[in-house]
């Protein structure tokens, strides 16, 4: 018998592989040269230090939203509201960055923590409603996404700026951007946030695998009733999972606010960081290390894709199709397992 562990690694790898092949077939079908297309993609993601910097910049929030969705999944919750939590985190980080005047060693951590707290509060609401009243968390988080989007737009206009479409820049004492990193990467927008993201991944691993809190969270995810019978407080664990999940997403918002952009603009649509986080978590099998790897893959695909229209004439949405197919194949892991087992039997 092939072990489960091997399957858990093989399935995502095979999915990515089939996804990329399908992308090549689509390019062929529409008369593009797939080799040129993928070369342009690679060039756009890792071609020189600038692109590497941009890729890492994109990976940073992906890791965090991926962790947010994965963490909730572990407790059997579907946090489709990472999107809204990113927005409130972003807004909170900007608010601290603009309003306060502190030395950097206080200001920056303060802004980051407040952003995480804002996201946590935004996750607390659906968590509490789910735990106390049994309201479906999917629907509440969807609704809260819109509430976050529209209220933050209103707050940017009325409170954080004087009827402008964007806030002013945060003061440099709250900024994650670094001249050193920018010089190193030919002035990409790479910032120190990647360290925070990686640290958050370690934190998630530690909570889930090494603490009794994590054990309870997982247990509730596996079987609510058994956990209750074993004396765990199911309600408290549901709320806690959503709060931590929201905090991760809030951090992702602060990465955009304090690192990449340094301000926040009124937006008619979502950032999609939260929705992409779902894809990242799924491909990463809801584990910390998996999320990091998946975030790197999707970040590189997304950033690299921007180079495809100019270099190879391929619309960059091809990458969205590839990502969708990868998720699809990961979801259909049953059939991949089945085929693999067939091959195994065939060998004997």
């Amino acid at each position, binding site marked *: 018998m092939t072990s489960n562990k091997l399957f858990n690694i093989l399935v995502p790898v095979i999915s990515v592989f089939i996804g990329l092949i399908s992308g090549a077939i689509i390019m062929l079908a*529409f008369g593009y040269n797939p080799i040129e297309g993928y070369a342009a993609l690679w060039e756009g993601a890792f071609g020189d230090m600038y692109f590497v910097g941009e890729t890492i910049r994109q990976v940073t929030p992906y890791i965090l939203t991926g962790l947010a969705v994965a963490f909730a999944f572990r407790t059997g919750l*579907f946090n*489709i509201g990472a999107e809204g939590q990113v927005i409130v985190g972003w807004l909170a980080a900007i608010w601290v960055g603009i309003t306060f005047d502190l030395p950097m060693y206080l200001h920056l951590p303060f802004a980051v923590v407040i952003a995480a707290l804002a996201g946590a509060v935004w996750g607390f*609401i659906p968590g509490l*409603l789910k735990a106390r*009243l*049994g*309201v*479906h968390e*999917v*629907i*509440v988080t*969807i*609704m*809260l*996404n*819109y*509430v976050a989007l*529209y*209220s933050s*737009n*209103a707050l940017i206009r009325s409170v954080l700026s004087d009827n402008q479409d964007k806030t002013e820049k945060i003061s440099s004492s709250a900024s994650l951007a670094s001249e050193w990193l920018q010089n190193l990467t030919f002035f990409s927008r790479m910032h120190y946030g990647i360290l925070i993201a990686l640290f958050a991944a370690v934190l998630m691993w530690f909570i889930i695998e090494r603490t009794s809190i994590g054990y309870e969270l997982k247990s509730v995810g596996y079987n609510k009733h058994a956990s209750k019978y074993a004396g765990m407080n199911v309600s408290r664990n549901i709320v806690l999972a959503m709060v931590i999940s929201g905090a991760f997403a809030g951090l992702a918002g602060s990465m955009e606010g304090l690192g990449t952009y340094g301000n926040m603009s009124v937006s*008619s*649509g*979502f950032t999609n960081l939260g*929705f992409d986080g*779902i*894809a990242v978590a*799924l491909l990463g099998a809801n584990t910390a290390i998996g999320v990091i790897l998946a975030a790197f893959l999707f970040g590189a695909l997304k950033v690299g894709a921007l180079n495809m229209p100019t270099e190879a004439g391929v*619309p960059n*949405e*091809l*990458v*969205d*199709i590839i*990502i*969708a*197919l990868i*998720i*699809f194949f*990961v*979801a*259909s*892991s*049953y*059939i991949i397992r089945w085929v693999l087992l067939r091959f195994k039997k065939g060998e004997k």
Partner: protein
Amino acid sequence: MGFIELLQSVIPPALFFSAPLIFTALGGVFSERSGVVNIGLEGLMVMGAFVGIVFNLTFADVLGAWTPWVSILVAMVVSAIFSIIHAVASVSFRADQVVSGVAINFLALGLGIFLTKQFYGKGQTDMVTQPFYTTDIWLLSDIPVLGPIFFEGIYVISYISIILALVCWYIMYKTPFGLRLRAVGEHPMAADTNGISVTKMRYVAVIISGAFGGLGGSVFALTIALNFSHATIVGQGFMALAAVIFGKWHPLGAMGAALFFGFAQSLSVIGAGIPLLADVPQVFLLIAPYVLTILALAGFIGRSEAPRANGEPYIKGSR
């Protein structure tokens, strides 16, 4: 402004905003009642909007005034075919249905924009020349008082959506097909032992949801958006999903929820013209539908119980 004029300015837009949501939510009800979670409604709407707009642009010269009607039919068919992907994944491949739905959402948007760039060389299409237009409904608009409120300057498609909800209710609760569909979603093993093919029923249900989702998306595109871009369908599918849950997985409940969302959305659009609401900052009207939904779910509706087997792949012989 008198009360009648008030109703006259609120109700037509409410109906017109809710029609796409009603169609899509009905699709969601079919799928989820058979035990297949369909978070891909958003993607099905995107597909419907894309096909509806492209077909409309291409055949407007040939079909004239019939274009929008044929467009929504074509959108229905294409989205139904597209939804087979979700059916194959979630029924045959035993995929996690939520995950497969998410994949559908990504795929529809990616494909839509990719093909738009292929066909038109830019990220959005031109405006359609043959959208749906508002009309006065013959005879009914002559009824005093009620006529002007409900039947003047209205989209016929709005009423079709309401009639369809009634039809769906009838199918689901008064026909053998409906009984089987619900049985498969509540207790697939019992249904299976009674000779109902779980797989077949679930395939049919998902394909119906694809058709209705495509209908909803194309109706949205041809009444409200009028072109296709990445920003045409932004969250309407999720609203429809919310309507399904809000309406407790019942066709008429889903219709009621969708009408409520449409009403709330219309308030935020025309609120400035209504004396009571004119002084309220617009943001409160914008977030009102979403906050009200949360409050309603928390307060009055209580626990929403999904069909028992919703989201679980059926594996023959397993208990």
